[in-house]
């Protein structure tokens, strides 16, 4: 861990230089979504189909935690694409780090920790905003959702790290965003219960880590659901993190040890 923390100054310096640029996408954009969809669309949806939503919640209550989970997914994935690829191919930041006592695993974990920080800081703001709308059931639930958000972030960051470190050209990101991120965003269960989808897509949604993240955040923030289901969701996210980390470690090792 000491070796990972040796990178703290680097990431802190980078963050100081770049955080302004990310304020809109990570803090303001979620707020727009909440206002537009939760409040605006919510007024319309609640009139029509209040009884359709599980646990009789309002649309704002339904979509708020879902937005948290999907925004974390998006931030984590973006932070794991160009920044990783760029550090290998363009700026050679990793190569410079690896000429020091740091190893591939230290470098990988250092960058992942930075992504975890980015998702956590964004989630903290988001949870506070949700509390402002009065939909956070308890402080413990809010903190739980924050921890869940970090799991969601890592479950998406680790496999995308592995993917980005294998790419020979950045054109590989277009299919990831269009065929990976976009359907995961839409069919995450954040905007409507996935039971409304055709069976095949519904089952696909169950396989996606983001659906488990959405459900987990919703249960924790609204104080609904049961512990058994939550533990299942956490277990599923952790499984993705473990496998994703293994792949990222392998992919980083292959790419960086030979300095492609």
């Amino acid at each position, binding site marked *: 861990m000491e070796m990972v923390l040796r*990178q703290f*100054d680097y990431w802190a310096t*980078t963050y100081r230089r*770049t955080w302004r640029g990310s304020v809109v996408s990570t803090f303001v954009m979620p707020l727009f979504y909440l206002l537009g969809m939760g409040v605006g669309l919510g007024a319309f949806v609640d009139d029509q189909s209040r009884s359709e939503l599980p646990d009789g919640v309002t649309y704002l209550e339904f979509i708020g935690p879902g937005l948290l989970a999907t925004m974390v997914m998006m931030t984590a994935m973006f932070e794991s694409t160009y920044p990783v690829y760029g550090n290998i191919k363009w700026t050679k930041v990793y190569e*410079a780090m*690896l000429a020091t*006592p740091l190893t591939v695993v230290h470098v990988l974990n250092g960058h992942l920790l930075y992504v975890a920080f980015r998702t956590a800081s964004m989630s903290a703001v988001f949870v506070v905003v949700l509390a402002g709308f009065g939909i956070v059931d308890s402080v413990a639930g809010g903190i739980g959702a924050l921890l869940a958000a970090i799991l969601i972030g890592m479950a998406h960051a680790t496999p995308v790290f592995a993917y980005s470190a294998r790419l020979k050209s950045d054109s590989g990101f277009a299919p990831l965003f269009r065929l990976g991120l976009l359907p995961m965003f839409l069919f995450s269960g954040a905007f409507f219960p996935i039971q409304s989808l055709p069976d095949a897509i519904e089952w696909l949604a169950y396989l996606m880590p983001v659906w488990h993240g959405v459900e987990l955040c919703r249960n924790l923030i609204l104080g609904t659901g049961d512990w058994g289901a939550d533990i299942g969701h956490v277990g599923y996210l952790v499984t993705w993190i473990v496998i994703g980390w293994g792949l990222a470690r392998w992919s980083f090792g292959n790419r960086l*040890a030979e*300095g492609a």
Partner: protein
Amino acid sequence: MSDSDTEPTATADEPEFDGPMIVAKGLRKRYGTLEAVCGIDVTVERGEAFGFLGPNGAGKSSTMRMVAAVSPVSAGELRILGMDPATHGPQIRARLGVCPQLDTLDMEISVRENLTVYGRYFGLSRAECASRADELLDFVQLTEKASGTVEALSGGMKRRLSIARSLINSPDVLLLDEPTTGLDPQARHLVWERLFRLKQRGVTLVLTTHYMDEAEQLCDRLVVMDKGLIVAEGSPTDLIQAHSTREVTELRMGVGEHDEVATQVKDLADRVEVLPDRVLLYTDDGERASVAVHERGLRPASVLVRRSTLEDVFLRLTGRTLVD
């Protein structure tokens, strides 16, 4: 940089290693089916300036990456500071300075931050990083640029910053992969002068280059590599003695006359080489050869008598065919 930083001093918890800094025996590097380094033996002593010369693709950079303990050895034996890179990579890298062929500076942070952040990777305290950064910026004459961005630096300044960064941990061995490629003459001379000062302070320098003047300026000893093998080894003067003559007489004749002239002057030199634009006479007395050429009634458009250089050795050993 203070003297105590660069003097090789032994500390209690880390007994000073007094064998050769780098020992390679039968060292090989394979990438799939391609063998870039095909079994080389190299020993670099403490305080020495050692050069790897060779055309592109000779295996210099592959060798350097193995020595830098970042690229695994495919076969053979390699010891750096007495340690095996396969098992002691981090310990070795802690005592090396690496100045890569392409700058790996961080464009998004300031010139000074490039040094302070890097020092932290070696476990130095923030205070140490700060004071060393200032000393090193002074050493490479970039103090005025300290708070500016790296992007605003010229190529030569970036190279000097790379060298400063590679010195942040006060390394025992400094590895430089083509330290002056792409720099203008003024910038090259400034880099050479700084490297020479480091050498005087006892830092072991290992560099790759395909500039012969660079090798002659900096290296005590060097190896010439070609196609993954060492084809010659020695000091610059040894190599010139062994593989070339003391002087070279260059004759420029009319177009198409070169081959004929070459046969006429064959006996005047140890070796005659015909190039598209010149005939080269390798001889120990270039002036005498020049006089003899005129005595035979030949009237070259121009005659140049010069000392033999490493370049002659290099081209003799690795050929004149263009390597991409």
